[in-house]
């Protein structure tokens, strides 16, 4: 390879440096509405050194331009950016008059393609969605992926949890890979960067995806290439699409003016809405108070006498409560949250002249979470983008960023150290404050710093906490991640002829992610304490050498040709050490202060090498054909199969409005029909081509582990069977569509229909464990996606300086797992044993799968209590007392994927005041409310404040889950249980309700929930599936641009952004847009997830 590069350079230097005859561009800049001249507007050719400023009468001229095709850009404060493609011919001066429209942000006519080359949008055969930097900033999100939610059709995003910096999942046109998380490749300035997510699990802290390291301020534009048709040029990294980010560059200023912007933002956040918890019944069981009791099936708080509790040891205020008297209750749903206010600021300096440009940005971001403490995300980012021309035809540029982030995170999810797990399970009559006490034993011994929780109300260090006191989780259970990252690219571009360009680009991305976690002494999960240290580091280097030719053969046909070579080297390594059981319980967290150590490490290196090319032919300047191909080798392809694969794509676009017929009609101003097809892939994961031997360490799913290291060491065959024939998974995508602009561009419609079919999808196929392996790697799965994308932009109203525009982005995707592997019905993607999110043959990927009710297999007549009841086949089976029966076999519970997703974006503009309202709608989809399922067991859920009175007759007749009638029950347990209360009139009251499951009325009391199938722990997950549809007021922003041409100022921008303001949903949890396992393929799981927040952001930007 080195030889090749050397030879090419040799050739280039041998080629004569010839200067062609130069051309020029001139014109006038005016206001499109008033026709007034706009003096001082910047007009320049994009990514070149050519430019000028308009004079007092609005005229400009750009001289000495090397002939070729460029993008002419005009910018003026308060106006929409103007872009147009221009072709400069030798010796000629062409005229381009620029009419700037105040108002709306429109889609740029220029698109940066997957390999970082600019192309006119009109010539694209694929539907590429663009999002401008301004739109991104207006959302108020600090991570790029969240900010493009509903901004374009075909983009499906979901925010995992509400923690600052938490990962957001993005899937373009549906998931198609089982072994990856289906996240698109992110390409910044032509070079791929990492967007890895490590540590997604059902417990522990919420995780982060590394796209948080991109400062949204630095983004000029984002192009979303949704699948292989647009992105095949990236071969086996592109099956999930590519997000092409272009960072800002300094813009040309004729006066060599240096622009300076100072920006400040104030964030204020709060809990979106509280989770429903009951406050009527106290700690205990059988209707009686139980000190340190697990459950909240105790007495009715209203019936207590009131006043202070009677204590076993009056000298110790937290001692055992002998008689619960107090009626005080506590709001465990909101007491953990605050409304933080934080300041963020940035400074931006940029400029440019005919020899070069520069852009510098420094940002300091602090985002505080709504949890009382230790939940935050901080980022310091510095970027320098510099370009310089060395000669008329050689340009070099370097874009580089250094980013430091740090984040404190709070334990969540299925995790007895987790915040909401402990909080929501706490009985309403238990005060979680203080969470730390100095415990005094009956003999007078003192134990400072003891963890007090509702299951250890005395704070006795001799007992375990059960679940962490949520305040203990917040203040003591610390997690800190901090990252240093450098990424960027350098490029040299050489134009020996106007029709030839040679570009060499090299990009590198390196970061270390350090993760420190502490479970202090007396933590519920690890009573003897644990400290862990992890360093994850990733490095990649990508190089591209590209040769591009453009040639106008004759008046009818022009052509372009591109040839490139790509090499990349990707290294991931990971060092981990944990120490368990502290020696000194209150010492600072330190590995050597523990008794048991567990170190680990991981390392993978993946290399890819490829050649690629693209041929473009434009006929009659209205039919555009593009063909591309990539020939790629990767180190992860199996030795027994091919080592090199070919990924082709092709597209055709016909701008039919260039036919003579259309030039004479006023309705359709632009129309294009397009079709495209492409093949892209996903590389196999590293090191699956053979079966390895691993350390003999075994767990059984409940925590205890046997590690042969402590018995002299052992080694066992991996349970994963390697496959030397593994090859990339291949996705073929076909899309076609139409783009129309009507009524003087006031209505724009774009519709796309696509299908993508993945074959040879890589699967770690489950095999019967009795075979000797539990899984084998294979290319066996087939996954289909079919969908429709629709974008309508309509400017309803334009009255003077007032305008109202609505954008609708509507997407619908139908995913089907067509085939997994022979005999394999389903495989787990994420989640719990019950339920899990799985790929099930014949269903959409990610369906929730778990325990269900047993159902009658045929029409059945059952006799219950002497009466006959008829059941249809398929209805829920009931037992001899009429209660539903759980099935021992699992099945599909529901599909978390929405039927469709839409964004409604309304932009109202009045002069320099802009109001933007974004409504996000997701229709359909299911979510598992595991939080509710668990709380039903504990008796703390908001639903469970029932109080029912039944007649004396019913109290003699109806049975509870244990098979007792209330009267029998009271006779059997006259003193020790107070579940039922007989009223003077003979009626009976109890906490619960009367239900009928088809076999006659039964009594639902506390036993149905913790002994019977009524809770998520003891009964089927099926009963906690809920509709995940929602309408969300995602963003409301009001911005004002104040031109202020005094004191050297240019303008001041003021803004108010309301983010995630309101949600309308049938979901009974906090927010259906959540997922316990982060951006993984497993979706639709809500189990004590940290809650989402809503925010108000004030911004000010002073521009010099």
């Amino acid at each position: 390879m080195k030889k090749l590069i050397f030879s090419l350079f040799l050739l280039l230097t041998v080629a004569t440096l010839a200067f062609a005859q130069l051309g020029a561009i001139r014109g006038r800049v005016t206001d499109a509405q008033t026709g007034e001249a706009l003096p001082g507007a910047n007009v320049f050719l994009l990514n070149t050194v050519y430019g000028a400023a308009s004079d007092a009468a609005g005229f400009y001229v750009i001289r000495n331009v090397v002939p070729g095709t460029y993008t002419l850009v005009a910018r003026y404060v308060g106006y929409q950016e103007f872009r147009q493609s221009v072709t400069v011919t030798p010796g000629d001066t062409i005229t381009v008059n620029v009419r700037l429209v105040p108002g709306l942000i429109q889609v740029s006519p220029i698109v940066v393609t997957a390999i970082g080359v600019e192309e006119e949008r009109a010539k694209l055969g694929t539907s590429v969605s663009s999002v401008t930097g301004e739109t991104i900033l207006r959302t108020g999100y600090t991570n790029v992926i969240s900010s493009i939610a509903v901004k374009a059709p075909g983009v499906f995003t979901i925010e995992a949890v509400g923690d600052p910096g938490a990962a957001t999942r993005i899937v373009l046109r549906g998931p198609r890979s089982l072994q990856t998380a289906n996240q698109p490749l992110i390409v910044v300035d032509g070079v791929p960067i990492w967007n890895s997510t490590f540590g997604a699990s059902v417990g522990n802290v919420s995780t982060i995806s590394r796209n948080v390291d991109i400062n949204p301020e630095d983004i000029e534009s984002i192009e979303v290439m949704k699948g292989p048709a647009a992105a095949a040029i990236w071969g086996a990294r592109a099956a999930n699409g590519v997000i092409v980010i272009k960072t800002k560059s300094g813009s040309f200023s004729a006066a060599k003016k240096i622009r300076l912007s100072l920006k400040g933002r104030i964030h204020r956040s709060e809990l979106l809405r509280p989770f429903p918890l009951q406050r009527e019944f106290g700690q205990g069981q059988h209707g009686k108070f139980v000190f340190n009791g697990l459950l909240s099936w105790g007495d009715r708080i209203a019936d207590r006498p009131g006043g202070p509790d009677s204590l076993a040891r009056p000298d110790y205020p937290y001692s055992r409560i002998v008689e619960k008297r107090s009626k005080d209750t506590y709001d465990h749903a909101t007491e953990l949250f605050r409304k933080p206010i934080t300041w963020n600021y940035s400074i931006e300096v940029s400029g440019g002249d005919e020899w070069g440009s520069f852009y510098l940005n420094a940002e300091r971001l602090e985002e505080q979470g709504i949890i009382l403490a230790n939940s935050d995300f901080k980022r310091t980012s510095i970027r320098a983008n510099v370009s310089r021309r060395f000669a008329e035809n050689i340009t070099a540029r370097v874009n580089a960023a250094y980013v430091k982030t740090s984040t404190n995170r709070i334990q969540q999810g299925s995790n007895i150290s987790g915040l909401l797990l402990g909080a929501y399970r706490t009985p309403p009559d238990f005060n979680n404050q203080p969470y730390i006490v100095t415990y005094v034993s009956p003999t007078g011994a003192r134990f400072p710093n003891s963890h007090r929780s509702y299951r250890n109300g005395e704070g006795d260090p001799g007992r375990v906490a059960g679940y962490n006191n949520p305040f203990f989780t917040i203040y003591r259970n610390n997690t800190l991640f901090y990252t240093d990252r450098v990424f960027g690219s350098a490029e040299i571009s050489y134009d020996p002829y106007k029709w030839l360009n040679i570009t060499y680009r090299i990009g590198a991305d390196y970061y270390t992610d350090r993760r420190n976690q502490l479970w202090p002494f007396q933590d519920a999960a690890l009573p003897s304490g644990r400290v862990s240290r992890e360093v994850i580091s990733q490095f990649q280097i990508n190089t591209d050498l590209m040769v591009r030719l453009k040639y106008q053969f004759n008046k009818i046909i022009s052509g372009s040709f591109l040839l490139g070579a790509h090499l990349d080297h990707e290294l991931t390594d990971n060092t981990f050490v944990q120490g368990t059981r502290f020696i000194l319980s209150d010492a600072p967290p330190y590995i050597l202060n523990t008794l048991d150590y567990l170190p680990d490490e991981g390392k993978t290196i993946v290399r890819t090498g490829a050649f690629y090319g693209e041929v473009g032919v434009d006929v009659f300047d209205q039919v555009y054909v593009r063909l591309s191909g990539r020939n790629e080798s990767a180190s992860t392809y199996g030795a027994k199969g091919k080592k090199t694969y070919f990924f082709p794509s092709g597209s055709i676009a016909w701008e039919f409005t260039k036919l003579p017929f259309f030039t004479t009609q006023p309705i359709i101003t632009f129309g294009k029909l397009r079709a495209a097809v492409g093949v892209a892939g996903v590389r196999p994961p590293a090191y699956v081509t053979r079966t390895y031997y691993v350390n003999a360490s075994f767990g059984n799913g409940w925590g205890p582990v046997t590690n042969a290291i402590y018995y002299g060491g052992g080694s066992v065959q991996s349970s994963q069977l390697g496959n030397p024939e593994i090859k990339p998974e291949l996705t073929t995508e076909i899309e076609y569509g139409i783009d129309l602009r009507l009524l003087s561009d006031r209505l724009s419609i774009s519709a796309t229909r696509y299908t993508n079919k993945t074959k040879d999808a890589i699967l770690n196929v489950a095999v019967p464990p009795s075979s000797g392996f539990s899984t084998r790697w294979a290319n066996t799965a087939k996954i289909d996606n079919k969908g429709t994308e629709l974008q309508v932009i309509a400017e309803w109203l334009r009255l003077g300086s007032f305008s109202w525009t609505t954008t609708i982005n509507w997407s619908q995707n139908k995913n089907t797992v067509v085939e997994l592997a022979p005999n394999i019905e389903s495989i787990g993607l994420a989640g719990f044993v019950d339920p899990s999110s799985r790929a099930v043959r014949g269903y959409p990927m990610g369906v929730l799968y778990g325990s269900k009710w047993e159902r009658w297999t045929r029409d059945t007549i059952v006799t219950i209590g002497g009466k006959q009841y008829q059941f249809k086949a398929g209805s829920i089976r009931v037992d001899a007392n009429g209660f539903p029966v759980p099935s021992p076999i699992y099945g599909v519970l529901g599909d978390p994927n929405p039927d469709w997703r839409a964004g409604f974006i309304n932009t109202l503009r009045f002069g320099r005041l802009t109001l933007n309202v974004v409504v996000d709608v997701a229709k359909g989809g299911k979510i598992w409310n595991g939080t509710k399922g668990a709380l039903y067991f504990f008796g703390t859920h908001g639903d469970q404040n029932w109080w029912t009175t039944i007649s004396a007759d019913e109290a003699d007749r109806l049975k509870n889950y244990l098979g007792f009638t209330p009267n029998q029950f009271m006779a059997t347990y006259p003193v020790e249980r107070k579940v039922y209360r007989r009223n003077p009139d003979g009626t009976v009251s109890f906490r619960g309700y009367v239900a009928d499951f088809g076999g006659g009325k039964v009594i639902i009391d506390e036993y149905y929930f913790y002994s019977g199938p009524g809770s998520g722990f003891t009964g089927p997950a099926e009963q906690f599936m809920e509709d995940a549809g929602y309408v969300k007021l995602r963003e409301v922003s009001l911005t004002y641009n104040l031109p202020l041409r005094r004191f050297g100022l240019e303008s001041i921008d003021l803004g108010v952004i309301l983010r995630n303001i309101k949600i309308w949903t049938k979901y009974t949890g906090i927010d259906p847009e959540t997922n316990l396992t982060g951006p993984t393929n497993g979706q639709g799981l809500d189990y004590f997830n940290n809650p989402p927040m809503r925010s108000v952001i004030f911004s000010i930007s002073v521009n010099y």
Partner: protein
Amino acid sequence: MKSILGLILIGVIITFVFLGCNKLTEGYVKGYEDSPLLPATAPATKIFAGAKAAFIEFYEGTPSKLAAIWAQQATGADRQYMAFDIYNMTANDFSNDWFLAYTRVLTNLKIAQQKAQEEGLLNLYGAAKILEGIHMGMVAALWGDVPYSEAAQPERTLTPKYDNQIEVYTAAIAAIDEGIQVLTQNTAALPQDLFSTGGSTAKWIKAGYSAKARYLMHLARRDNYPTAVLDQVISAALNGIIATTRTGTPPAAGYGTDDLVFTHGTTYQGNMNLWHSFIVQDRSGYLRALKCYAVRMLGARGTAESGRFNYYFTADSNDLRTTGTAAYAANAYFPVIRASETLLLLAEAYARKGDLANAVTYLNRANTYTNTIFGTTLRTNYTTTDFPTQADLLQAIFNEMYLALMHQVEVFNFLRRIDYQIQYRDGAGNIVRLTPKRGTVFPQRFFYPQSEVSTNPNIPWIQAADDLFAKTRVNGGTR
């Protein structure tokens, strides 16, 4: 001129690209195919050690806890364990244990045996065969018809067939026999042993015989304990673990000189006692005593049992003891086969044959063992006259066996074999029988795991909730 130069340039580039293309890129990626950290093979000794560690995790893990709960020697007291306590099980509850049993234990025992033969380590081969027999007998007892003849042979099939439970028992006993025969001829000590044998092949042979006696007794039940099989039980048991002397290193509690036990250290997620890890570190509150049947039975037996009571339970009868030299201290050993079990098997076999004198002798020997190990003061001078009928003697033997197998997986097999016929007299002289926690029947098997249900077309039938209570063949069932 310029365009000609340009065309030449393009031509040269294209030629370069398409001639060298694949070669160049494939050369660039070569040498990065394999993991820089993991080996592709290992020696027999280390694989056998790995298999043994997996056996510990299986045997001392969930199966023993479920056995203890269902035998009412402990109580499932929190969340899923509350469901287990009243027999609410799903197929998936057994996936981890099945995985350990097959993918970890059996597979690596087979690989270790093959490598041992290649490396000429026949003593290791023999020990691995015996362990395979002990293990597969247990697997057959728990699940019924299970894969064996085709199991753990991925080169042959990835979907092994299910063998009849009786055939699996027979094959497991055959494996033990083969192991004993090989070890008899290859007596060199094993280089590395995770169990209490210290690598002694003599101890491995004894363990083999004890296990053989245990499984023959399982088989005997099906045909109502024919004399021929009982004679085989006696013959095997007499060669098995029957020493009543005590060994073990303080501060950990002692065990019988020849007992097969797992020895433990104090490292969490390393070599710590797995019950200690579960009760203290991982799942506090899930597994408790809560005055379960065994607690009450020991209590009713009075001070004679205080040694054993204190070994297993806390003074308030609510928890399992995890401190000092108790059963579930961090470094406490966990028994696989105790001498008392083999001695009581002998007693039972003789009693069933009508040889009551010998039966009483071995009952006394078993009590001697218990006294030595736990500091109990059980009677060791019973005579046949203490038992009015053969049934009375058998009941006494059963009751002792029930306590001797405390918290071991085998207690579940044993109870099913005798139809859970355990009883004691309370303070008032009333007979208290072991009765189901819910409904009228006891569990009779483990479910086939979801991992097998959803992958192996040979799974014998589609399980329903009631199948948990269906007897396996060896206990008189039909599947």
